[in-house]
């Protein structure tokens, strides 16, 4: 099949960008979306033009490096799927596909479709960990963790940090990302000692990065390639209120 691409091209940060049209010809359904872009890039290189820059690494939906807004939907039309696992069979001959980078004040565009997501690392630095020095751990089975709790914690921990939640949110909020990390750790007994500090500090770090606030649209959950539920946002709201109620935080 042949498709027309409208790809956001931008030479560097803080430079003007715009859509450039490309024809992708001879595309087959078994190609992944990124492989389709690879073939377009091969053509560009052959012509001596700079290829379209886009982040990607594992190409099996787990590293969280890739992420494109495809026809107005982060990661494209397939539910619970990263861009790298989106296949061209979901498109039709003659389609026009518009490709844009994540847009958020905290994710500045670096080049073409690549954005800087280091803000996520800084949110984690604010408390997205359990302070346990190497070697100081107690025997693993000393603290039982009820299976439903471990399962819910795992539901949150599957976050791959791709940023689709921010990209999809009408407010550019990072609440789903932040809540997934707080939820993962605060649900576990091992994470309880620091739960209030974690909740307050990570939320404050999120806001220091200028991400927006949540207004409960649920777009993040729909865009999330791991389908992480906004239940974790409610959970974090509770943790946050708990922090102020008990005043057990710094």
């Amino acid at each position, binding site marked *: 099949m042949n498709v027309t691409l*409208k790809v*956001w091209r931008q030479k560097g940060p803080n430079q003007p960008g*715009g*859509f450039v049209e490309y024809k992708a010809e001879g595309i087959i359904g078994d190609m992944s979306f990124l492989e389709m872009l690879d073939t377009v890039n091969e053509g560009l290189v052959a012509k001596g033009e700079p290829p379209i820059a886009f982040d990607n690494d594992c190409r099996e939906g787990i590293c969280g490096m890739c992420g494109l*807004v495809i*026809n*107005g*939907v982060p990661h494209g039309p397939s539910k619970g799927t990263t861009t790298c696992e989106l296949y061209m069979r979901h498109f039709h001959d003659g389609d026009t596909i*518009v490709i*844009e980078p994540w*847009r*958020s*004040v*905290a994710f500045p*565009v670096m080049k073409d479709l690549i954005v800087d997501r280091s803000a996520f690392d800084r949110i984690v630095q604010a408390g997205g960990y359990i302070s346990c020095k190497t070697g100081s751990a107690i025997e693993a089975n000393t603290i039982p963790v009820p299976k439903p709790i471990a399962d*819910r914690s795992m539901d949150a921990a599957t976050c791959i940090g791709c940023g689709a939640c921010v990209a*999809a949110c*009408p*407010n*550019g*909020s990072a609440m789903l990302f932040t809540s997934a990390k707080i939820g993962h750790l605060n649900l576990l007994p091992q994470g309880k000692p620091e739960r209030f500090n974690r909740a307050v500090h990570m*939320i*404050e770090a999120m*806001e220091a990065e*200028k*991400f*927006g*606030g*949540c*207004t*409960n*649209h*649920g*777009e993040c*959950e*729909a*865009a999330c390639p791991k389908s992480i*539920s*906004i*239940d974790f*946002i*409610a*959970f*974090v*709201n*509770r*943790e*946050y*209120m708990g922090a*102020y109620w008990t*005043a057990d935080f710094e």
Partner: protein
Amino acid sequence: MNWFVRFYKSSLGKKIIMAVSGVIFFGFVFLHMYGNLKMFMGTELVEGLGVYKYKMDIYAEHLRTFGEPILTYGMLLWILRFVLVLALVLHVTSAVQLWLMNNKARPQNYANALKSQVTTFFARTMYYTGPLLFLYIVYHILHFTTGDIHSSTHIEGQVYGNVYNAFQTWWIALIYIVAMIFLGFHLQHGLWSMLQTLGINNPKRNLWRKRFATAFTLIIVLGFIAVPIGIQAGIIPEPHYQPNSTVIAYHETGR
């Protein structure tokens, strides 16, 4: 108070304040709607006075005498008004500040607009229904509480009559009906959102949150618009007050 400043500075703090003030409004509109339904209840004999009055008027008067003697006459209403105004100020301020904050979060918008996947019409229009409701509240207070507009027919104390007379005019009735539909839009997202923000959440039972929001939205909206519709449709009868009084008729006791 340092902690409050810190709490309020965060978006979560603002949202929680919006949710708590939302709870207050929810309680208020529900009770208000309940009270309004007295319009359908007709009259009642006030035993001690030996007079007939409209149930609506008795109810309105009761709001002023409620809590006596601990509270003085009308005090409860003033407390409620104070709480409601405070809640309104907090609700609106937080909303405006969140809106400003969220606007800054995406200075360069998508050149090809995002396609909504799950968000509802109601959620997307909160920033429109909110200000509209605010205008409506001002109008409503000037109309029924202070009697400053449509004042030709307003008589202090004759609540039943004032409502009846106001809704005789079709376009006033229409304003109120439309406003209540906007209220419904705001509640549909607001009620669910309030539960979500306050962390009232259990992944296994979350279906109930949406049901709760829809059910109460319907109850409140239908309850409110029943009155103007009832008057326009002639279901609610015309008032018959004694001149300059809230009394309809004197009861013949036989004594």
